[in-house]
Structure formats: C-alpha cells, structure tokens
C-alpha cells in the first residue's frame, strides 16, 4: 500500500472560496427541498454496513446521521430515487454557471485541483505499468476534468458516463472493459454509493484501477467544525465517509487498496475561513492556539495531517480483484 503527501500550497480562495459557496448552498437547499416535495425517501442505515444511523443534527434543515461503527456522516432526508439524477444535474449546472462560484475560479481550479489529479492518475498508471489505457470518467456533467483528460493525450480513450445512469444501470453498455475509472467525489453525491461502486467494478477489466477522491468526516476540518462545516452541503455531500469507512466500503466492494492518502492542503485554512465567517463557532483552546500560530507551524501541522491520513480530502486507488 502506498500513501502520498504533497507540498503544493494554494489559497482556499483560488479553489473553493467560502463566500462563493454561500449562494450555491442556498440554491442546493432549495433544489433539494423541491426534489423532496416530489417524493421522500428516509435513509436510516449506514450504506457501509447497514448499521442504524444515529441522528446528529441537520444541515440547511436536512438531517444527517452518523454511522456508529465508522463515523461516516450520511444524509438521512433524501428525495425519492427518481428525482436524484435531476437534482444532481440541476446543482452541477448551477455550480458551473456564471453566477456559480466555480466559474469565477475555473483557471486556478484547473491548475491547483484538476492538473494535480491528472498527474496523480498518470503517475499511478505509469507506476502500475499500464500504458495507453481506456479510462472511464464517472461524473454528472458538465465536468471540468473531462477536457483535461481528453487533452492530455495520455489515454487511448476517455469515456464520460453520468454517475446516476451508471448507478441505475441505465447508461450505454460498454464496448470494452476499462483499464481505469475515475470518481472525483462521486461517491459523496449519489444516493446509493454501493450501487455505483458495483456498476463501476463491473465495467473495469480484471486488475483495473479505481481512482477515487472524497471528502472524509475523519479529517481535521470536518472533525473540528462538524455540521458547521459549510462544505458539508447536500446533495453534493449526501455521503461523507470516514477514511476508515471508505476503506472498508471499497474492500467489501471487491477492490484491493494500493494507495490511501489524504493529501489535503486546506484543512486549517478552511477552519480559519469558517471562524472569520462565524466567530461564534466554538473551538477548543488548543484549536484556537493552532489556528493563530505562525505560518511555519500551520504548514507543519497540515503536513502532519497529510502524512498521517488526517486531512479531510482523501485520495484512494483500488485495484479490482
């Protein structure tokens, strides 16, 4: 098994500005409300192990429950399965619209978020000695990553499939199995992560690789902020696995893990941004001390979080077995 650290540092404002997020959250809550008005579905069990979820509070009026065994956070107030694809499509379109926050930072997101992810995928494929692979991108369009994958010239073919089509087994049949599949935070936002993972596994060839990123509840900023974390926003974060829960989930879905990392660089800055936004958020003395420490200390702490799997951004590579 490998784990990875990264030294790249960039400001939160260049990739996911908190201020820009607020309008998007409002839109998401309204869209979720509309979807739920068409039909409701109450989730009561952890998708990892079926354990009864323990209610822990609400985000924007929608309840989350905690998996008692793994610590993952899962949206309990779901709309009906039929309206979920439309909901995701609607919020994704908004995020990329001129008024959505992604449009304003698309250049720096490409440089700081997507280019490193492409690099990660390419490096891993090289290390695994997989050349000219066919890759499956699983996402709700539009995807900022699709063009980067296509332009790289690294892949024999890039096939982008709507994650909800895959989840519902309604997508086009694959001509050939894929060498690799990339799921950038897809498991976070589907209503049935188990179904998605099974569908992806079916489309991979034997020994095919799964590239997965996710926000994880076991990481620093989510542990410190809990439900106050504004990035925990349904439907994008309908599922917020813990790192351990995600590992269990993937293994049980038939993947051998060859890399588990949390190379996040923004945990401390996210908490700082939340404190500026809402000084009433309660932190411990130690957390206050940490956040007000000098830059070198904060950087060292962020490196420590990365190295020890304690950042809230997780990256995993699994091999189909």
């Amino acid at each position, binding site marked *: *098994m*490998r*784990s*990875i*650290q*990264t*030294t*790249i540092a960039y400001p939160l404002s260049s990739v996911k500005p908190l201020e820009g997020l607020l309008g998007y959250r409002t839109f998401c809550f309204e869209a979720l409300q509309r979807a739920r008005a068409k039909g409701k579905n109450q989730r009561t069990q952890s998708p990892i192990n079926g354990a009864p979820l323990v209610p822990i509070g609400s985000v924007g009026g929608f309840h989350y429950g905690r998996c008692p065994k793994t610590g993952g956070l899962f949206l309990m107030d779901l709309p009906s399965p039929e309206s979920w694809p439309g909901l995701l499509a609607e919020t994704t379109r908004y995020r990329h619209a001129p008024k959505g926050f992604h449009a304003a930072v698309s250049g720096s997101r490409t*440089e700081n978020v997507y280019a*490193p992810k492409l*690099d*990660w995928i*390419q*490096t891993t494929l*090289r*290390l695994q*000695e997989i050349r000219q692979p066919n890759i499956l991108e699983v996402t709700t369009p539009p995807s900022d990553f699709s063009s980067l994958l296509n332009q790289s010239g690294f892949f024999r073919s890039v096939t982008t499939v709507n994650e909800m089509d895959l989840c519902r087994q309604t997508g086009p049949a694959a001509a050939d199995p894929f060498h690799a599949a990339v799921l950038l935070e897809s498991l976070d936002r589907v209503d049935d992560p188990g179904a998605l993972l099974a569908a992806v596994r079916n489309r991979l060839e034997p020994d095919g690789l799964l590239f997965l990123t996710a926000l994880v509840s076991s990481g620093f900023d989510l542990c410190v902020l809990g439900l106050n974390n504004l990035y925990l926003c349904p439907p994008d974060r309908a599922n917020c696995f813990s790192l351990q829960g995600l590992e269990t989930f993937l293994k049980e879905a038939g993947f051998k893990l060859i890399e588990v990392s949390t*190379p996040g660089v923004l945990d401390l800055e996210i908490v700082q941004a939340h404190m500026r936004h809402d000084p009433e958020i309660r932190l411990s003395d130690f957390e206050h001390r940490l956040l007000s420490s000098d830059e070198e200390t904060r950087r060292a702490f962020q490196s420590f979080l990365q*190295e020890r799997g304690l950042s809230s951004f997780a990256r995993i590579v699994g091999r189909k077995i």
Partner: protein
Amino acid sequence: MKCIIFGYGYMGKIRYQVLRQHPQVESVKVWDPYLDRSKTNLGKDLLPADAPIPWSTIDAAFICTPNNVTSDLCVQALKNCRRVFCEKPPGRNFEEFCRIEEAAHAVPDHLLMFGFNHRLHPSVQAARTLIGEGGLGKVLYMKGTYGKSGGARYRESWRNQKEISGGGILLDQGIHMLDIFQTFLGPLTFVDAVLTDSFWRCGVEDNAFVLLRSRDDVPAFLHSSATLWKHTFRFEIGCEKGYLVASGFLSQSGSYGREMLVIGKRQFEDEALALGNPREEIIHFDRDDSWEKEVSEFLAAAVETRTPAHGTLAEARHVMELIQNVYQRRGQRKATKVTS
C-alpha cells in the same frame, strides 16, 4: 527445487525465509559450520558441520558467506549444481570475480545470478517508471548517498578486515548504489574518486566519493560512508522535466527511515507562481518485496533455462570493474604522495 544456503548470517536468514515460502522450493538446507546448533531452530535443515555437501541432491546453491569464501564456493557450486545465486559482492576483488566468471563460462548451461536487491526496492522501481517517457524526460545527473554510522563494534566486524572483506564501505554497501546507477544509465565509466579512512582507521575506506559518467555523458556521483552517523539512503535523479529523490529504506531494523519517493515537477515562472519551489509529491512505501522478487526471478530463470533479467554476470562485471578502478586510483594517489 532443492536448495542449499551457504552461510546463515543476516543474508542467509533472509534467503532461508524467502525460499521456505516459495512454492517452487521443495527443501532448503543450510550449511554453516560456524553456527551454534543449539541457538537455531533450523532442525534437520541445518547440515552437520563435518558432513560432505550433498551436491547430488541439490538443484540450486545460495552463497551468503563472508566475502573471502564467496569465489571458492561459487566456483564449487557452479561445477557441482550449475545454478548459483551469489550475494554481493561477487568476490573480494576483480580477480576473484574473474575466477567466478571463468568457472561460469566453463559450464555452458549454468545459471548465475548476483544479489543486488536494492534496485528492486519499491522507491527505486517507481523511479524507473517515471524517467524518460515516464514523464520526466531525459536524465541529466544522478547522485547517491548511502551510509551508516558504523557502530560500537564496527572495527571488529569481518566486513572491515581487508583479508576477509576485500574492501571497505564502498565494496560492502556503496556497491548497491553503483548497481542502481547502472540500472538506470547502463555501464558507467570511472572518472575520479577520493577515499578516506580517517575515522574508523580499519585499513579500508570509511568514506568513498566516486565520480562516474555514462556512455551518454550523464554524470553520477556516489558518497558511500561509514561516518554518516544517521543511517542514510538517498538517491537523486535530475531530469529535464523534474527530479526524483528516493530516500529511506524498508529494512529489518527500520533505521534508514520510511521509504519514500519524492516526485518534483519542473516549473518555470511562465508555468506557475512557484519558481524554484515546485510542486512535489511524496509516495510512501510500506512493503519491501525485493527479496521475493529476486529469488523468484532466479528460480524462474532456472525453470525456464534462461539468463536472469537482473543481477547478471555482465552487470556484476561492470560494477566490480568500477570498484577496481576506484581502488587503483587510491593506490595511484598514495604513490604520487610518496613520490612528491
């Protein structure tokens, strides 16, 4: 396959464990007349010290002895069972290596492989996949630092008694780094070297600084040391589009630190803001399967009656020639000093 291991020291024990677990291995015998029988749990696998070597029942021999008996045993094993795996160094010096080589040439269907497991370490293997068309482009230079602190009983170790070992830290440990250099760059040419024996004063070098170059003029520089105090393995590759640093080493003691590979991508000011401080990724490795890979390759080559993919006679020759050149340069410098 029925195997015999000569010598049950650090290396012998590792090979024994690996062979015992290998599906192609039927039995493993150990020959080590200096072993205290009561302190091992080898049972019937340990041959009696005074018993003759049961060559007629042996398919492959593993030579894991101190250097002074390596060449004799290799020659004997080549004659008697044809398949020989020999730990580095292949003899105390180039002459002893040549004896092994000559014996091998006299056995047309022989299999001879040398143990240079470091090139199979995960960080080094990963680095190989990333140079050239792997993304980082042409190699511009290589640097290697490999060393240890010696230790309280360093002087007493057989490794520092020239009659037994044949040389100092360069032959004992630096040879691995030379092998790694050649794995990446092909056969190297000796340029210059400085050796010292200024701290341990064992009569063999405790520090070696060796400058080399490849056929394509890529320079490589080695510092092999027994006075680093902190155990260190650090292998750097400078490339056109970035750099790689393999460091730390998965070992039984863990004293070389966590094995990792730093991947740095070149960035100029027109590409990013981070001039001179580029993005780096660090891959950590937590499993060393180099021993298994090495033994598996040897056994596969035996079954398939082919030359092994690594640790070949030719590769061993290149590395021993380099070491001979370094030691000869030391002799020349001493002679010059006396004359002047």
